[in-house]
């Protein structure tokens, strides 16, 4: 203890405060545990790489008007399908002469919008259903899990397609369709996790304090399920982006002229042989962002998964 405080230099006071073994307040205890997880996460270079890509994506989406060299909707039919690097189009232009780079930059907003909506709604729906089924058991469990099974039985994209065709095309409906197809696996994970903890003594103990089922589920079971869900969601993010892109590709997601990446690929596929960049550039963007989410998910698993870290 003494030697470490002698060694401490300027600016490391807050760090010591965060790393203390004997926190003095609720806030310090919480911040301290977050900081420790952050330290563990930071030591994983691949995960940090993924995180920085996503951070960059966020900045790009925020500052799109300042970053984009052109208006993404302005057409210049004279300069249609110009190759990357020519005519001032860094990543080339598409069949209507719109700058692909600018469209990708603006498209990142749509991608983030879809991703964050799905990432919020699907796991929360899954968490509700899964923990309720797992904790309450009995007929609640049977009913909820049968419903989950029905959803799981269909291939994701086809189910999403059916929903979108019923609801009508558009981003919001695409998001809704993806959420409806994405929650069942989360419900299963949450239920499996709940089954392993619902008979634990610490849950019995809180029951003996007189807590009701709702409080036990939300305050005591959720915190234990959330980490595995967060990991799963980040790993699934790539799939979600691809599903959104797939819907866009089929013309059921974002509608032209919206610069959604999947829709852009779809529009470019007609020119894939002669003008490869039109479809490839958005494909590359999807690939990079999916990869970033995957790396992030792997890193989070190392930090959050209690089976590995403990």
């Amino acid at each position, binding site marked *: 203890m003494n030697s470490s405080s002698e060694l401490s230099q300027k600016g490391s006071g807050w760090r010591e405060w965060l790393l203390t*073994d*004997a*926190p*003095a*307040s*609720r806030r*310090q*205890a919480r911040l301290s*545990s977050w900081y420790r997880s952050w330290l563990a996460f930071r030591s994983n270079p691949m995960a940090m790489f993924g995180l920085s890509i996503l951070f960059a994506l966020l900045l790009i989406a925020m500052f799109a008007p300042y970053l984009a060299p052109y208006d993404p909707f302005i057409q210049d039919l004279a300069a249609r399908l110009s190759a990357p690097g020519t005519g001032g189009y860094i990543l080339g232009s598409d069949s209507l002469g719109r700058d692909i780079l600018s469209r990708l930059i603006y498209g990142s907003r749509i991608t983030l919008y879809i991703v964050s909506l799905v990432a919020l709604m699907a796991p929360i729906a899954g968490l509700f259903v899964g923990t309720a089924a797992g904790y309450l058991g009995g007929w609640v469990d049977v009913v909820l899990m049968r419903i989950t099974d029905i959803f799981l039985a269909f291939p994701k994209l086809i189910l999403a397609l059916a929903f979108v065709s019923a609801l009508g095309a558009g981003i919001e409906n695409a998001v809704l369709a993806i959420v409806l197809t994405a929650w069942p696996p989360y419900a299963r994970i949450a239920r499996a996790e709940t089954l392993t903890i619902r008979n*634990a*003594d*610490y849950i*019995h*103990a*809180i*029951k*003996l*304090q*007189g*807590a009701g089922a709702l*409080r036990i589920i939300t*305050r*005591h079971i959720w*915190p*234990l399920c959330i980490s595995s869900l967060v990991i799963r969601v980040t790993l699934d993010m790539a799939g979600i982006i691809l599903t959104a892109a797939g819907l866009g590709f089929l013309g059921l997601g974002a509608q032209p002229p919206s610069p959604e990446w999947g829709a852009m690929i779809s529009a470019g596929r007609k020119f894939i042989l002669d003008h490869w960049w039109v479809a490839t550039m958005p494909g590359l963007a999807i690939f990079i962002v999916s990869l970033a989410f995957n790396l992030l998910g792997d890193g989070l698993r190392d930090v959050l998964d*209690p089976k590995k870290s*403990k």
Partner: protein
Amino acid sequence: MSRDNKTGIELAQVNVWFGEGEERVDAVIDATFSVPHGGSFGLVGESGSGKSTILRAITGLAPTWSGNISVLGSMLGKERDKGFYHDVQMVFQDPYASLHPRQTVDHVLSEALYLHGFKNPDKRIVQILDDVGLEQSFRFRWPHQLSGGQRQRVAIARALIIEPSILLLDEPTSALDVSVQAEILNLLTRLRKERGLTYLMVSHDLAVVSHMCSEMAVMNQGEIVEMLDVEQLRGLKAKHPYTKELLDASVQKRRGKP
């Protein structure tokens, strides 16, 4: 609930079972005993003989039982209300399993206070940590930063902080080494004296039971086979063959190899 009644806990012809039909397990058969208010009663017996199950039936964790259980003079039904949990608290067998892995000591204790609507949580937490002999620096620690003995004290603090009058103790020291065991047993003795608590204590260690309790029931295969008081236990005056065997084995264990 009225507290002027002289009995703390009373069980009459209590049966507890799990499962139905073919799968049915009769864990407790026809258990009858009573613990006076302010008394201390021990349950000893074979592993798997239903000791923990009796405690679970009292607290409502084992839903399928028949017979009469009354606590502080009022008969228990299928459901337990908050008032019941205010009077009766339990300390579990395994300190490694009874604390939520993602909650600090402070969180565990303030949740208990919140659920029972206590005012002044800060003051009470400081006080209870003092009572169970934990330094204040432990208040914001996570379970994985505590040793087995410290965890068990937190579990005892959680049970005591809402000021129950009856404490059910399921092998409170079996996972602990003798030096910590001595500290915890002293703590429990002191608290009982100070607060006039009623204890129902399960243990497989006859020496621990004889130290803590004035009366005990011996269980074997779900049935209470004999009731002893502490003098009979110390004098090794058992009648039932199983109790005799139990006493013999304990004494042998102390005296070294047969």
